[in-house]
Every structure is written in C-alpha cells, then in structure tokens.
C-alpha cells in the first residue's frame, strides 16, 4: 500500500515536471519556427524573382527544404492551391497546421496572402519584404519572451510538483 502511494506521488512529480518542460518548449519552438519561416520566405523571394516558376511548385520545393511545421504549412498550401486561389490556400494552411505560432504571427503571415498570386513579380517581392520586416519584430519579441519564460516555466514545474508531493506525502 505504501509502495503504491509513493509510486503515485512519483507519477505526479514526473507529470508536473514534464508539463513545465512542455510549456517552456513552446517558447523555444515558436522562435525556431519564426526563424524557419523567415528563411523560407527568403527562399520564396529569391525563387519568385529569379525563376518565374508558379507558386505551387515553389511552395513544394520550400516544403521539401524546411522541416517541421513550417514545411507542413507550405506543403498544405501548395496542395490546397489545386482547388482554391493562392491567397485563400495560404491563409487556410496557416490556420490549419498546428504550429507554435501565436495569433499575431499568423495575422502577419496571412497579410502576405493578400497579394499572393495577384500582382506582378515586383509587387509580390515588396509584399514579401514587408512581411519579413514584421517577422523580424516578431522574432525579437519571441527572443525576449523565451528569455523571460523558458527557465521560469521549467523551474516552476519542478517546484510545484515537489510542493504537491510534499503536501500529499
């Protein structure tokens, strides 16, 4: 009976530590995804200006190059473009893929879709530039938040787990 009790307490401790680490990892992942998105947009920009290949093809190539959720966003968008227009496909893909980006990031990326596939090359490139500028702000923001919250949440998980265990023991 005693063994079961201590086993349960141990499980509670492990669960709360993992929860803390999970929340902390969200901040790290958001930063990673934002940076990944920035490089992906860079690739997109150079491909639009130099190769003149259609957007679905470019997206497919970017999806192959970038990993994780960002790659998923691009591949979903390029698949959706077979049925709907580019801007709808892009904004739907951003909202559908389960990424660590927050609402603000998504809104900025959605703004990219307004001109996607509707203007000439110059217009698209300037739109991509503007989006990248906004993304830079978001990356700075994400760095600040990561510094503030990453350690906090992992420590918080450990200490709260220990506190629960001590109170229940």
């Amino acid at each position, binding site marked *: 009976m005693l063994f079961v009790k201590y086993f349960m307490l141990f499980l509670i401790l492990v669960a709360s530590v993992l929860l803390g680490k999970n929340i902390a990892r969200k901040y790290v992942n958001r930063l990673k995804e934002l940076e990944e998105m920035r490089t992906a947009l860079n690739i997109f920009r150079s491909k639009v200006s130099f190769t003149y290949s259609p957007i679905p093809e470019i997206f497919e190539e970017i999806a192959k190059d970038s990993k994780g959720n960002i790659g998923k966003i691009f591949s979903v968008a390029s698949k959706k473009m077979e049925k709907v227009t580019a801007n709808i496909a892009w904004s739907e893909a951003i909202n559908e893929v389960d990424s660590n980006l927050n609402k603000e990031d998504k809104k900025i990326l959605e703004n990219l879709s307004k001109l996607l596939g509707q203007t000439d090359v110059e217009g698209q490139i300037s739109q991509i530039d503007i989006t990248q500028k906004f993304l830079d702000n978001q990356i700075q923001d994400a760095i600040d938040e990561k510094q*503030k*919250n990453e*350690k*906090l949440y992992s*420590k*918080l998980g450990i*200490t*709260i787990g*220990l*506190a629960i265990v*001590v*109170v229940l*023991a």
Partner: protein
Amino acid sequence: MIVKMDINLLFKIAAIGILVAVLHQVLVRAGREDQAMMTTLAGLVIVLTMVIKEISGLFDTVRTIFNL
C-alpha cells in the same frame, strides 16, 4: 501529560517553506512580483491548515489546565 507531536509535520512544513522560498525567488526574477506574493500567501495558508489541529490541541490543553 505529554502529547507527542508528529515530527514529520515539522519536516513537512520546513520542506514547504523551502519550496515556497524558491518559488518566490524564481517568480521575482521573472518579473512577476504579484504572483510571487500570491504563492507566498498560498504557502502560508497551506501550512496554517496543516497546523490548525495542533493549535486547537494547544487551546484544549490550556482550557483543561485552567478548568475553563
């Protein structure tokens, strides 16, 4: 009459005290002073609920000693 208090209770309170102190420090470092305050208060309340039995025991003893 000697009432033996459970020594484990003391250790438990000490452990909670240490953990609350650490929590307070962590939260203050992260710039969340009000939440640090709340955790300290919560720790106080938890410890008080743990010792309330002992306090009532103390009052009972006093009452029986003076025949009140």
